[in-house]
């Protein structure tokens, strides 16, 4: 589903964010991307969502080589990827419903169908009934779940998350991570970037550890579940 083949990323200021990174995530798999801050986790996610392009090497998402996706086609490309951010990136001047519905509005969905989908997504993250609440009235954990609902509402085959538990206390963090696992269980390919080593120890999942932009190890997680 996602293939990184000898990927390099050098920024214009000369900093090399990734050098020779290779890994792959099969369809329906879930992967943790870990390593210290600045190790290149965010860069990997940016290359998947075509927020940036690799300097060298190939990034293939859902059988498409990102190098072949023209600027004009990026929007369509991104619609198959759900993205979750550490800071949620919610639109605070709009109710939860509008935030979650945004990808569907972009896709041009009918209102009736949209209602159904948004409610289903909110149900998945346990926020059904909060449609008309403003994001700022919600707790940080709830805001993050709104962000996840928005990422999955259009049922993208790929879901990527950048430090989704960064601002949460351990219990909430575990809850969110379990939510990702549940989404993965219904067939979504999930990549989660996190530096929280203790948290991912609790899941029996593959990990790619980055260190200074290099793949330092690829391993199956310790079996804890």
């Amino acid at each position, binding site marked *: 589903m996602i293939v990184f083949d000898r990927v390099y990323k050098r920024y214009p200021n000369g900093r090399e964010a990734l050098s020779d990174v290779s890994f792959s995530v099969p369809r329906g798999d879930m992967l943790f991307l870990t390593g210290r801050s600045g190790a290149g986790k965010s860069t990997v996610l940016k290359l998947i969502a075509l927020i940036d392009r690799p300097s060298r090497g190939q990034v293939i998402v859902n059988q498409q080589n990102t190098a072949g996706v023209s600027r004009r086609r990026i929007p369509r490309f*991104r619609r198959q990827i759900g993205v979750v951010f550490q800071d949620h990136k919610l639109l605070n001047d709009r109710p939860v419903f509008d935030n979650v519905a*945004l990808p569907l509005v972009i896709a041009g969905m009918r*209102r009736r169908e949209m209602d*159904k989908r948004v409610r289903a997504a909110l149900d998945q993250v346990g926020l059904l009934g909060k449609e008309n609440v403003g994001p700022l009235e919600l707790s940080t954990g709830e805001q993050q779940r709104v962000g996840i609902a928005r990422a999955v509402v259009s049922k993208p085959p790929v879901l990527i998350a950048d430090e989704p538990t960064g601002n949460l206390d351990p219990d909430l963090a575990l809850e969110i991570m379990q939510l990702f696992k549940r989404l993965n269980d219904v*067939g979504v390919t999930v990549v989660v970037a996190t530096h929280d080593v203790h948290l991912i120890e609790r899941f029996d999942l593959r990990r790619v550890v980055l260190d200074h932009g290099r793949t330092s190890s690829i391993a199956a997680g310790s079996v804890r579940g």
Partner: protein
Amino acid sequence: MANDSNQEVRPGRARRGLFESMGVYFERHAQTLVASLGRMTRQPMATLMTTSVIGIALALPACLGLLVANARAATGAWDSAIELSVFFKNDVRLAKAEQLARALRERSGVAAVELIPADAALKEFREFSDFGAALDALTDNPLPHALVVRPASDHISPAEIDALKRHVQNWPEVDLVQVDTEWVKRFHSMLDVLHRVLALVAGLLAVGVIVIVGNTIRLDIENRRTEIEVTKLVGGSDAFVRRPFLYSGFWYGLLGGGLACGLVGLGAWLLQEPVSRLAGLYASDFRLLGLDPRTIGLLLGGGTLLGWFGSWLATSRHLRAIEPTA
């Protein structure tokens, strides 16, 4: 949950799918149109200020245009007052003058020819001037026979008057032809200059409106940076991101045009009474020309177009620069 999306692509429903997606397309545009207006009404002060500036900018050339139109209408009656005075040479006898007057009456483009014999002219001159005594001292009448020629009202263009003047001038019996309408011509050239000024002012202010709308939209884009980023991140195309801003520009222009109509209408209404009083003093039935449908259409249509164009420029320049960086 995974099934309901599959229904949309069943082959039997393809036809309906086309109409449906067109329906969705228009529905989306309508929603964005209304949403843009809604967003503007939530910031009434900022919207009012932008709209006012546009309204005033559009009202200025419209007022100038009305001024020119009114001046033309008010002076239209003067054209029919154009007369040519034809003075014969002193040795031309009355019979010859009468014959020439008749010839002139036959000519097309001539409405009336009045012959003023030298005796009548002298009598009149004696009555209306203080030179009575001096004139008595003269043994001969120094005045020639004369004609007053009034062109037909549809033959009063400067070129036609000129042609008529030259035609008469070429007669050997004629000493002098006077057209006492130079000042009317001058006035009309002044109006032409004013008209040109109007076009220049309108052009400048149109550019002004584009800049105002462009700047407002630029600030709007800056304020909604996060929203634009997020929208692009979840797959919003450039066109989708751009749409609400274009509609905002549309509304600014339309509202500005409406305000301009209001301002011009108000101005005309305020001037109506004093102008007709003034016209009354000159025994004229002149009535001030107010807002006509053409001006209204021009203000609303022009305003909308300029607003749209201004926001189109702003979005072209600034939206591309905003890309998600998360």
